[in-house]
């Protein structure tokens, strides 16, 4: 085993497409800073640092999946969205990817925009949309929270993987002979199984935090004001 790289290496996607996604990622992160500031108070700031550090740690833990010789690891989009919300969550993922590329030689620096778009933008966005939907539909129980985390994690991983397929279609450097479907198939199937692992890790972590400190789970805090019409006002309403 010569390397432990897990992100897109240099040379896989051509320069112009990598640059295009660098611009997309920069714009998205600028928006995330602007919107995330509203969420970041004295308490959430160190918590969000912990979430980034935790995602860095768990991304190192490759677990075996269905076929021999293939492993998977957490991406962390759903976990971040659950714990610190979509904007700060996206920034957490971006920091992890930047540290990995600049310090650990994992993922080309020129490819950073592609990875940030897939995991910090697409992964977090898909996860948060599902979280917002499922928390409204499912019962407000531990099981409901666990199912929300699991499904959001699973789906976000598969969609993020397809984000790479889109990027490869736009600027992949190898001639697949028009057989992009083959790459899409292997990416989708392997990430479906990785998504199961991601779902289990995400659900376990979120449920654990929710039991210790429910006030530190963003998705649970954000849910309360989400239905203002049904909450009686203190002091009575006419």
């Amino acid at each position, binding site marked *: *085993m010569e*390397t*432990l*790289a897990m*992100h897109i*290496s*240099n*040379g896989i996607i051509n320069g112009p497409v990598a640059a295009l996604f660098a611009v997309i990622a920069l714009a998205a992160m600028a928006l995330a*800073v602007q*919107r995330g*500031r*509203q969420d*970041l108070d*004295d*308490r959430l*700031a*160190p918590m*969000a*640092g*912990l*979430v*980034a550090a*935790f995602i*860095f*740690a*768990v991304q*190192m*833990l*490759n677990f075996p*999946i269905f076929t021999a*010789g*293939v*492993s*998977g*690891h957490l991406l962390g989009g759903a976990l971040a969205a659950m714990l610190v919300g979509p*904007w700060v969550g996206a*920034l957490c993922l971006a*920091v992890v990817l930047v*540290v*990995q*590329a600049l*310090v*650990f*030689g*994992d993922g*080309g*620096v020129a490819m950073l925009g592609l990875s940030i778009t897939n995991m910090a933008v697409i992964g977090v966005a898909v996860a948060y949309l599902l979280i*917002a939907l499922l928390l409204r539909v499912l019962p407000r129980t531990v099981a409901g929270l666990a199912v929300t985390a699991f499904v959001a994690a699973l789906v976000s991983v598969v969609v993020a*993987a397809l984000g790479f397929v889109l990027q490869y279609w736009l600027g992949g450097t*190898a001639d697949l002979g028009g057989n992009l479907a083959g*790459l899409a198939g*292997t*990416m989708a199937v*392997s990430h479906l*199984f990785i998504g199961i692992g991601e779902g289990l890790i995400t659900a376990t972590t979120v449920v654990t935090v929710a039991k*210790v*400190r429910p006030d530190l789970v963003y998705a649970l805090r*954000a849910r309360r*004001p*989400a239905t203002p019409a049904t909450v009686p006002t203190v002091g009575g309403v006419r």
Partner: protein
Amino acid sequence: MKRSWGFLAGGLLVALLLAGVVSNFASPHPDGLDSSLREGCTVDADGEITGGSCPAQQEKEHEIGGPLADYGIAGLDNDFLSTGLSGGLGVLLTFAVAGGAFWLVRRRGTGPAGSPDVDRPGTPTPSQG
């Protein structure tokens, strides 16, 4: 606020254990992305591509590399220590960079600092944007 420090310390400890110890038991096989890009190539026991045709053959050198490249410590022969120490350093570095950046851009001046999650009527909910 006080209780949050306990939670932070506990969480960091868990992350350090995962990256510093458990990481040594991680699967050595290529991940979903890497293995998908090797589809079509033959690979030997060391993971080196030996033949065929696949996207991974287009890979180019990393711009920086550096002493912690590939989650190890350059020059340290003990694999367990090399992976564990680099992982632990990564956790602390990520916490410092992310926590520091978030602290710098945080919202200031509204409400008493460190007050527990109080629902103030009329407070805008940023999550609903």
